[in-house]
C-alpha cells in the first residue's frame, strides 16, 4: 500500500476514535476534513452529485416546487427555455420537475434492489464462508447457478410470475445481483476468518462468537458499503432496461428509466425529453460508481 493510502486509512480510523473523546462538533469537522482528503476531487464531485440526488429524493419539493404529474396538453413539447429549464413532455408536464421528483423512486429502486441483493448475498456468502463444508459446497453451487442466469433472463422469468411493475423488477435485479455479492462476501469472510488478526484475537482468549462480532462482521461488511454504493448505480440502470421492455415502472410516476424510455421515441424531434433523465441516470449511476470505487480504495484491505 502506498504511503498516501496508509495515511488516508489512518485519518479515517483515527478520526473515529478521537471523536469519542472530543466534542461532537470538532469530531464532525475533523471527520469531514479527513473524508474530503481521502475522497479526492473526483470523489468529492461524486459525493456532491449523490448528495444532490438524495436531497431530491427526500425533499423534492425543495428543488422543484411544482407538481410532477400536473398535465397541460396545451404546453406539450416546449423546448428548454425560461419557463421550463428542461422543457416539457408530451403531456405538457415540466421535465425538470419530473426529473427531480423521479429521484426518489429511481434511487429507491436502486437502493431496494441492492438491499435485496445484499441481503440474500449476505445469507449465502456468510453461510458458505462460516458454515460446515457441506453447506459451503451446497451454497456455492446455488451461487453458481444464480450466476448462470443473466439478470435480464431472471427478470423476465420473475416478471412472468409476478407481473410487470417496479416491485418485480426490483426483486429481479436484486436476485440477479445476489450471487455477485455472495461471492464477494464468501471470499471476504473466509479471508477474514482465517486472517492473522482473528487468530490473534482467539489466542488472546476471545471466544469465537465474540471474534465474529468484533472482527469478522465489521471487516467483511465495510468493503461491502463501497460495493453496495456501486451496485445502486447499476441497479438503477438495469431497472430502467426493464422499463424499456415494458416491464418497469408504473405511469405516471416520473421514474427516470420510464421517462428516458418514453422520451427515446422523440429523440429526433424533442431531444430534451431524453437528455434530462438520461443525464440524471448516468450522472447518478456514474457518481455512485465513482464514489463506490473511492470508498473501496479507502477501505482497509
Amino acid at each position, binding site marked *: 500500500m502506498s504511503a498516501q493510502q496508509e495515511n488516508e486509512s489512518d485519518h479515517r*480510523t483515527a478520526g473515529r476514535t478521537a471523536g469519542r473523546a472530543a466534542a461532537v462538533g470538532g469530531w464532525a469537522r475533523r471527520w469531514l476534513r479527513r473524508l474530503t482528503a481521502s475522497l479526492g476531487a473526483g470523489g468529492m464531485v461524486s459525493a456532491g452529485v449523490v448528495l444532490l440526488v438524495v436531497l431530491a429524493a427526500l425533499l423534492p419539493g425543495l428543488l422543484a416546487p411544482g407538481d410532477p404529474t400536473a398535465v397541460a396538453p396545451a404546453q406539450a413539447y416546449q423546448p428548454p427555455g425560461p419557463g421550463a429549464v428542461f422543457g416539457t413532455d408530451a403531456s405538457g408536464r415540466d421535465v425538470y420537475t419530473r426529473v427531480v421528483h423521479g429521484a426518489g423512486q429511481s434511487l429507491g429502486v436502486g437502493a431496494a434492489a441492492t438491499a435485496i441483493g445484499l441481503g440474500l448475498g449476505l445469507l449465502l456468502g456468510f453461510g458458505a464462508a462460516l458454515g460446515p463444508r457441506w453447506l459451503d459446497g451446497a451454497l456455492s453451487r446455488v451461487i453458481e447457478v444464480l450466476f448462470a442466469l443473466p439478470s435480464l433472463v431472471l427478470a423476465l422469468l420473475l416478471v412472468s410470475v409476478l407481473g410487470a411493475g417496479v416491485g418485480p423488477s426490483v426483486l429481479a435485479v436484486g436476485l440477479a445481483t445476489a450471487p455477485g455479492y455472495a461471492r464477494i462476501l464468501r471470499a471476504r469472510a473466509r479471508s477474514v476468518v482465517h486472517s492473522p488478526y482473528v487468530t490473534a484475537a482467539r489466542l488472546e482468549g*476471545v471466544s469465537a462468537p465474540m471474534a465474529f462480532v468484533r472482527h469478522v462482521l465489521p471487516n467483511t461488511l465495510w468493503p461491502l458499503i463501497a460495493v453496495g454504493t456501486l451496485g445502486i448505480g447499476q441497479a438503477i440502470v438495469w431497472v430502467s432496461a426493464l422499463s424499456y421492455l415494458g416491464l418497469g415502472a408504473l405511469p405516471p410516476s416520473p421514474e427516470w428509466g420510464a421517462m428516458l424510455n418514453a422520451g427515446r421515441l422523440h429523440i429526433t424531434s424533442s431531444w430534451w425529453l431524453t437528455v434530462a433523465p438520461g443525464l440524471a441516470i448516468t450522472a447518478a449511476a456514474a457518481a455512485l460508481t465513482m464514489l463506490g470505487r473511492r470508498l473501496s480504495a479507502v477501505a482497509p484491505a
Partner: protein
Amino acid sequence: MSGGLSEEGVAPVLDVAGLTVSFPGVGEVLRDVDLRLEPGRCLAVVGGSGAGKSVLARSLVGLAGEGGAPATVAAERFTVAGQDVTGADARRWRRLRGAEVGFVLQDALQSLDPLRTVGAEVGESLQLRGTRRPERSRRVLQALAHAGLDEPETRAAQRSGELSGGMRQRALIASAIVSVPRLLVADEPTTALDATVARGVLELLGRLRDEGTAVLLVTHDLGAVARLADDVAVLDGGRVVESGSAGQVLGRPAHPVSRALVAAVPRGPGQRPPVPEQAPEVLRATGLRRRYRLPGGGAVEALDGVGLTVRRGQALGVVGESGSGKSTLARILVAAERADAGRVELAGEPWSDLSERHRRPRRHLVRLVPQDPLGSFDPRWDGGRILRTALRLSGSAQSPQELLELVRLPASVLHRSPRSLSGGQRQRLAIARALAAEPAVLVLDEPVSALDVTVQASILETLADLQERTGTALVLISHDLAVIRQVCDTVAVMHRGRIVEQGPVEQVWAQPSAPFTRALLEARPPLP
C-alpha cells in the same frame, strides 16, 4: 584518454560526480553524489532505510523514476561503462542496460515474471539483442550454472513461483550476468535470505568480482559489506557522508551516521545473569510432532519429536534455517495449532490437551508475537483500541500509556492505525499488546528479521530490558544467530523438525557439537 583513467591507469566502469536526483513534490532525494568504481572491485553503498540507496542504484541505469513520478537527474560527470550518459535519451540507456550493466532489483522475490519460465527471463537481455535460440539457451544454462543453481536445465524450464527465495535470487543474478556486463548493480541481494543462503549469494558476487566484473552492492547489512566490499560509501539523506576503503569505514567510522550503523550490529553476548536452576518451569513441551500433508501428495515432517523447557525468567532462543519448523513450534506452544503427538504443559498444568474452552481462562499466561505483526491487527482498529481491548481481556489494571512506555512508544500511537506505523513501531505495538496480559511466557517469532539494523538493535534492547524488569520468560525465534546471542541465555538449534543441539548460548557458541550448528556458525558473516 585522459582524466578518465584512475591513478593506476585503469578506466573506471563507473564514474559519477555531482549526481543529484529529485522528484516533483518530494524534492531532492540524492544530492551531489560522487562514485567511482573500477573493474574487479566491489563498492558497497550502505545507509539506513530511505537514505536513497535504491534511487542511486536505479539512476545508474537511467531508471531513477521507475515506478513513481518521473525523476529529474543532473550530474556533473556521469560515465557508465566508458560511455558518457549525461543527458542520454531512452534509446542510449537501453543499449547500456542488460549489455553493459547488469541489475539485480531489491524485490528479488517478485523480480522474475511469474508467468514466464526462468529460462525466458534470464535470456531476455540476449533475446532483446537478437541472439538466436541455440546460442541463447546455451548461454542461459551457462549463466544459471555460474550463478550456482543446480540442474540448470530443470530450472530454466520452471517458473519463478516454483523456486525458493534463494534460487530466485540466484536466477535473478544469472539474468543480470548472462550477457557478461562490465558492471553489476545488486540492490539488497541478501535481505530476504537466511544466513546460509545469503552467504552463498555473497560468495557468488565475490567470484564475479574476482573474474573482473565491477560490483556495486547496495545493502544495509554491514556483515555483507565486510565480507565482500573493497570500498564503502555511506549514504544518509541522499548525501554520501563518508566513503573510503571497507576496512577504514567499518573499523574507524568517522561520521556519526556510520558510527551508528556500525554500532547497531549485534555483537557479542548480552549481559545476562544466569537463570537459577530452581526457577519454576513455565512451559514444558515433550515429544511434539507435526506433519503437514502437501498439496501434490506427500508430507513434510515440520516437527519430529521436539521437547523443551522454559523456566521463569529464562530467555530461550530457537534458531534454525528457513523451513526447519520454528514457526510451527511457536504455534503449537501457544496452542494455536494442535500437535499430532506430544504435549505441552503450562506452569505445570496441562495445556495442549485441554479443549479450547478450558484453555481460554488461562490464555493470558501465554502470548505470541507473530512473524508479521501488521497482519495481526484488525485493520479498522487504532493503537488505543488494540491495547485497551487487550487490557480488558486480561483484566489488567494497567493503562495503555503504561504499556506504550514499556516498549518505548510515544502516546500518539494510541490514535494511529497500525498501517501508518513504521515496521519497528508495529513490532513494538505487538509486543505491548502481548504484555498487557503480563504473560508468563512470551513467544516471539522472528521479531526483527524485517527491520533494518538500527531499528533491530533498539527492539532487541527493549526486549532485554523488558525481561529484566518483568521477568517474563521469552521464547525468541530467529534465523539470525547474533540476535539470539544478544538476548538469550539458552539456545535450541533446529534442523529439519528436530532440535539438534540445546544449551547455554555461550557454550554452544564456543563448542558447537552438532555439525549443523557448526555450519550455521560458519555461515555467519564476519563481524565488521
